[in-house]
């Protein structure tokens, strides 16, 4: 039920806000924003640490669960230069050691601000896997094949009842581009004004369902 065929590609949505491509054995996440709370603390805002460890552990668990053979981050693995502290570098080093599969980072706008990424991580402008292209900013999409992107942290607003509404993170398919929700625990989102042909998929408990458009209006 979490598997959809989009533009001729088999795409499996996971409720944690990530995508698994069974044909390629690839797990794709976007917008992890490691070290975000450290950035806050560096600017004098008392936000506790913990999400870096948590998010990396969540990633490892997802890799084990899906049996993925490669991990791809669609941009914004890191948050800001002031968030790259020695503690966080150690966390990442441990993570990379335990990661036994290839790892690719598509460079996000936040990553681009960091002159030297920790643990000599390499980044690239985009990643091509046969007919699928992984990018960070959905505006960089071109061509007819499927693109996977991040950057927007998409959320959907669902009016319920008289005066309230729900805001939920979602996967947004617009044209040939599938925009992933942000993965980082300490990241927010933005409600994206919808186009008529947009398709929306929301995590609900242990599955991901396509949202009937009547609910969004």
């Amino acid at each position, binding site marked *: 039920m979490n598997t959809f065929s989009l533009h001729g590609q088999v795409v499996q949505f996971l409720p944690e806000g990530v995508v698994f491509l069974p044909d390629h054995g690839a797990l794709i996440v976007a917008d992890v924003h490691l070290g975000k709370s450290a950035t*806050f603390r560096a*600017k*004098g*805002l*008392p936000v506790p*640490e913990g999400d870096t460890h948590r998010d990396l552990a969540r990633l490892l668990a997802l890799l084990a669960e899906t049996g993925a053979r490669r991990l791809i981050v669609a941009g914004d693995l890191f948050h*800001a230069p002031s968030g790259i502290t020695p503690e966080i570098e150690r966390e990442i080093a441990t993570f990379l050691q335990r990661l036994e599969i290839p790892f690719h980072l598509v460079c996000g706008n936040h990553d681009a601000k960091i002159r030297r990424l920790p643990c000599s991580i390499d980044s690239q402008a985009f990643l091509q896997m046969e007919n699928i292209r992984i990018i960070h900013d959905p505006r960089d999409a071109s061509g007819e094949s499927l693109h996977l992107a991040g950057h927007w942290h998409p959320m959907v607003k669902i009016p319920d*009842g008289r005066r309230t509404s729900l805001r939920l993170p979602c996967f947004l398919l617009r044209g040939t581009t599938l925009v992933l929700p942000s993965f980082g625990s300490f990241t*927010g989102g933005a409600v994206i004004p919808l186009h008529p042909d947009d398709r929306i998929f929301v995590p609900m408990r242990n599955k991901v369902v396509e949202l009937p458009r009547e609910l969004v209006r």
Partner: protein
Amino acid sequence: MRFPKLQPFFDARGWKPFPFQRETWTAYRQGKSGLLHAPTGQGKTLAVYLGPLSETLAGPDVCSVLWLTPLRALAADTLRALREPLAELAPKLQAEARTGDTSAAIRAKLRRKLPHTLVTTPESLSLMLTHDDFADKMAHLRCVIVDEWHELLGTKRGVQAELCLARLRTWFPTLRIWGLSATLGNLTEARHTLLGSSFPDSVEVTADLKKPIVIDTLIPREMERFPWAGHLGTRLAPEVAKEIEKANTTLLFTNTRSQTEIWFQELLELRPGWKDLLAMHHGSLDPAERAIAENGLRDGSLKCVVATSSLDLGVDFSPVDQVIQIGSPKGIARLLQRAGRAGHQPGKPSRILGVPTHALELVEFAAARDAMMVRSIEARPPLEKPLDVLVQHLVTCAIGQPFLPDEMRREIQSSHAFRNLTDSEWDWALGFISNGGAALAAYPRYRKAHIQDGRYTVDEKRLILQHRLSIGTIVGDASVSIKFASGRALGTVEESFISRLKPGSPLIFGGRHLVLVRLHQRTATVKPAPKNIQGHVSVWGGNRMPLSTELAHALALRLKGDGQPTPEMKAVQPILDIQKKWSRLPDDDSLLVEHTRSREGEHLFLYPFAGRLVHEGLATLIAYRISRVSGQSIQTTHNDYGFSLNAKRGLFLGEDELRQATSEENLLGDLIECMHTAELARRQFREIARVSGLILQQPPGRPSQSQREIQSSASLLFEVLQRYDVENLLLQQSRREILENQLEFTRLSQVIHSLQQRPILFVETEHLSPMAFPLWADRLQAILVAADATTRLEAMLKELNQAAG
């Protein structure tokens, strides 16, 4: 005691000082502080101001008096009132205002030199505390006067003022502090809250000028066609228009901003010729729009201003000779305050005309009059230990003048709000502003204040700037500003209202018929609507002020038949007779429970007379406890008089079952469970996060990159704290505030306790009684209690599937 120096001012006007003015001057001269309780327009300004002025008449122009006002808008009027005696008695001395509205030029002037009398707000005073030379500049300060203290009492701004005053008292131990307050049920407590623990011999002066207040009511001519309850109708508008015609200038008060818009439209429709004589005033209008109404009231060029509580406060509008209250007065103090806006001259009676929107409000007006006679006025309980305000103030102090923790703790505890501060709370607050405190391990590399020679100090320029931008405790709603394409601002509306409109949709705002052009980010662009287009009246949230305990009690007494006959009671008697015939008249010595059956199943109506917030909590609690046993789902509705439960079956309860459902046992636990307090607390956290400095105030304009790096939402922060610093005291504060603000938990527990003693009177009714009918009619409006998002979404999807088929 004689005051020859002040005599010229009174002689020039042919006035004689009132006894309460002499009393205040005498107490001041004896070195005392205190609280002056006087209605507006009673010479209270002269009472508190001339004391310190007479001492400093001959002196140099150094800052001697600090005047704190709760409203920026009041500053200009206050300044005018203070300059009058100053011009007469000491023309060389200056008075100036320093508020958020003050121009940059005057601000710069004030940075160089402070005037003899400085008028300011709690926020601006806090801001001045961050300047290291402020204490030196204030070295000659003799007296602080806090105007409209009743407005600040019970709010975070009030606590901010308490802390600032504590700072000033530490610097200047002989400082005298005088507060001004309108009528309150707890004046003594109000005085102790203002003065803290440093003034054992403070005094309370009452300006008992016997200013009579008359409460009249507009009684509907066709009572039998008047609604029993419920709607905020404009049925009496034609009569109201006639009353407005009779007076020179009328202030028409409503209870909500939406009602203001509705009544404004209604009056214009009835009297199109009043187009330029009618204005409107509410808190969401742009200050420029509000100024139009205020100036029109001051110079008497307007016939009528339709307003909300935004005009409750002290500006002197002498031309106003009539005040009308539309709908429930909600509380006695509030009704008196509003009545006092008319006939501002001493000795003239204040009259207020009550206009009911349904029958039971007639009883409310009669009850308010009774309560006024026996002086049963609402109290405003002061706030206890809001830690978000404390941490903000500590950073303010650490910037201005680094402090020793022990000394500072004594100072903080000299304020009323923090007199019972515990060791662990103090340690937490110090940790929060310095290194993360108790949960140090969770805050690597965090530092705001650091300790230098034992003193807490904040000296990093960026942090100082950031903090100055964030000072204050008022947190705006998620609001959208409304503008014309020309850029002219009209005011703000709630996002939830405007986001439901499409471009091209008509709406009514600020008395104007408009069309939405587009909504972009936080700005809605509008244009005037073509003629004869009906729009949606703008809706704002927060229409939840409950009937006060005192008024509810007076109302219950009236229903019981107590008190002298009045026209209001005569008018509603037929309805009360029906209630008595079909059921009984409820009161607050017993608990009336009506049970009835309809096609919808069973209904239960209960009337505790405890105000809508408490009833909402009680209804939800009882429904939760009953359905836990019966498994039935139960719908609830509530109003200021009582609440109802509706279910398919299982509501025919015996006394034991009902006693169990209203038991005090595990009250808090059950409430937290059934009201989804966790979800609500997350929403409440926004204000706390802002005040405590976890969320930064964004300066206007596009945020810079470094600002964007530290943007986050309150609910994200709430979750992070819950995951990694669950002991954080701000989380507990958020839960406490939600219980008090949304549920009136203290009042609810008192009501539950009193219900234990009250006999239960069960009545099986054949028809819905007049008291029950509005609760039944409201059933479609009941707003579902928020569950977590996934559960709500699941329910919606299920509904959609069922509808499909």
